[in-house]
């Protein structure tokens, strides 16, 4: 019973989980499921989003999130009597982050407002290169800091056991996390540069892991491979690959083979269906076999891509495609799967 909450996790020393993925692979879903999985290990988790889409609010079925940490869910306790952690969420936008940053570090009460009046806030967050990313990652860093001060937190002073960041897509992730190089040539000295350096130290440390979400299709797998290469080149720690939306495995390899080669006897299928009271018109049997043939083709392509994913040489995790879509209950299911497989 003295099983440590860390037992079974592949990433025991990591407390900043960055989740990226190509558009359409479900990276936000995976980030949310990972946050729940970590919470079910008794940890208090902060789930951050930085893309202004309010995806967290939609997934957890809560009102749109403000720039303030909000309690949104509780993890499932691992066993009777065990305490589950809580998931908090934070929607980070660059404008609020900049104003907060100015207030916190420079005590720029009036000057901060002057900046706003002269359009500097707007300028800095939409036009000035790199600044936006520095602000977003800087806020994540603040949240990750142990023993941090209140900030915008509604639970001032509390520290989280883990942070999950629903990050920008794979194509932009290295640039986003590599705040140093984005600022290079712009701010060579000064507090912004110092801030970027501190943030980079965390991102490059063993406390951070960047997980990549993919589906078993050519383009996303290729992009995942490219993304891993870029992350490594930037000295950022690559975590695991989460393979999402995996097709059901109702048929085994030999059955798939039989279907591919057309050696399944329709009359046998028809007879079996009749046994359980399904009126087996020939069209129905044909339709079932046609569906299976299509499925077999896609499974073969999936297997090919799975081999490529395995060759990436990082731990992989697989999540099933849920036919009816992912609702809150579905998120908990996915969280349990991730925990079982050791991502959390």
């Amino acid at each position, binding site marked *: 019973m003295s099983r440590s909450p860390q037992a079974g996790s592949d990433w025991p020393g990591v407390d900043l989980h960055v989740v990226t993925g190509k558009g359409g692979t479900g990276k936000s879903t995976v980030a949310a499921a990972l946050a729940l999985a970590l919470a079910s290990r008794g940890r208090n988790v902060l789930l951050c989003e930085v893309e202004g889409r309010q995806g967290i609010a939609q997934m957890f079925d809560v009102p749109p999130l403000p720039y303030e940490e909000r309690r949104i869910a509780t993890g499932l306790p691992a066993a009777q009597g065990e305490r589950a952690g809580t998931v908090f969420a934070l929607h980070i936008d660059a404008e609020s982050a900049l104003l907060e940053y100015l207030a916190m570090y420079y005590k720029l009460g009036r000057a901060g407002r002057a900046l706003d009046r002269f359009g500097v806030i707007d300028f800095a967050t939409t036009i000035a290169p790199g600044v936006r990313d520095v602000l977003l990652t800087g806020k994540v860093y603040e949240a990750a800091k142990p023993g941090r001060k209140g900030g915008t937190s509604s639970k001032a002073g509390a520290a989280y056991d883990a942070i999950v960041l629903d990050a920008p897509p794979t194509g932009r992730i290295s640039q986003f996390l590599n705040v140093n190089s*984005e600022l290079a040539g*712009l701010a060579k000295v000064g507090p912004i540069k110092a801030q970027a350096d501190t943030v980079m130290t965390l991102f490059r440390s063993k406390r951070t892991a960047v997980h990549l979400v993919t589906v078993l299709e050519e383009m996303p797998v290729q992009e995942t491979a490219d993304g891993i290469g870029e992350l490594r080149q930037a000295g950022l720690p690559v975590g695991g690959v989460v393979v999402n939306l995996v097709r059901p495995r109702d048929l085994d390899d030999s059955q798939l083979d039989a279907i591919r080669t057309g050696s399944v006897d329709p009359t046998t299928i028809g007879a079996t269906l009749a046994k359980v009271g399904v009126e087996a018109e020939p*069209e129905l049997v044909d*339709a079932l076999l046609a*569906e299976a043939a299509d499925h077999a083709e896609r499974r073969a392509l999936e297997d090919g891509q799975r081999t490529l994913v395995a060759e990436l040489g990082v731990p992989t995790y697989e999540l099933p495609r849920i036919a009816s879509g992912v609702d809150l209950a579905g998120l908990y299911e996915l969280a349990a799967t991730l925990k079982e497989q050791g991502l959390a």
Partner: protein
Amino acid sequence: MTKNPPPRVGPLAAGGPAPRPLDVDGLLDDPATEIIVCCGSGGVGKTTTSASLALRAAERGRKVVVLTIDPARRLAQSMGIESLDNTPRPVPGVQGNGSLDAMMLDMKSTFDEVVLSQANPEKAQQILENPFYIALSTSFAGTQEYMAMEKLGQLHASARESGQWDLIVVDTPPSRSALDFLDAPERLSSFLDGRFIRLLLTPARGPARLMSAGFGMMTNALTKILGAGVLQDMQTFVAAFDTLFGGFRARASATYQLLQADGTAFLVIAAPEPDALREAAYFVDRLSDEQMPLAGLVVNRASASPEGRLSAEAALAAAERLDPTEDSLTAGLLRLHADRLRIVARESRLRAGFATAHPTVATAVVPALASDVHDLSGLRTVGALLARAE
């Protein structure tokens, strides 16, 4: 007993009005169509759709140029081009009398070209070497949108002039939000007109009235945060760039008007997923607010509706009653059938939701392909599916 299975679950059962079908060939064949803009959120197959439409239009006799933003290597190869660049290149293997050129937006060279064409050589050099310009032209999220608009304007002007093309198909950048693309010209203009820029342009010893306490406080604050060097770089950049501002603004607003013109058609691309359709709905609303000509919605990656009158519930119930070892094949077939029906039902529910809220939007539904497109014939297949010619 499931002697008479209930009626099929599928699009027809999902209720709601069936959306008007999108007449893709009508759109492509109409000589009045000069620009087709494909927009939508990331990962919905925007680039593939753009390329397929361009090829189909070319093979139906149009002289087409397709501007892609960030094509996957495979897709570039499918157009017979190892690596697309900033210059339109002819795509080999196009059938019929039309022609197809393809290019990929290179935002830095597009930006550089604009600078070089607008400023005298000395000034241009000064701008190109400014660290602020380098950062702005390579990494600023948003430059891609501005430059896509710039390139579209250039292509359109050169098409008018030379008659080399009569249709431009544009893929849009994978923006954080689809709106960035539309906002680009407006944002550029407001940036250039912004008070901050104006202030940076004010010489250090300008008129006393501008040197308000607020301004002093602001520059002090900025220097404190960024370090003195940055503000200076920024000032140098803005001063050097000042002469180009007028041209930028004029072209940005010309492109915006071009998008509103009758010759332009917007296609919103989506996948049957809640996020993608929500983004599509948002975009459709935004286009109508801005009086941009919307041609329709393309829903990619749709699951094919299965044949056979057996409901998901009946199939699962039957699978439960089968012997798990002896009849595992048949049970597997039934479960697959149920799984597919559920996906189809979910997708049609999502599509019906969109159609109910946007009843006038014509729609094309493209079934999910088993594998990625690798060659022209793959693009041709997608084009035919778009036009429901298969």
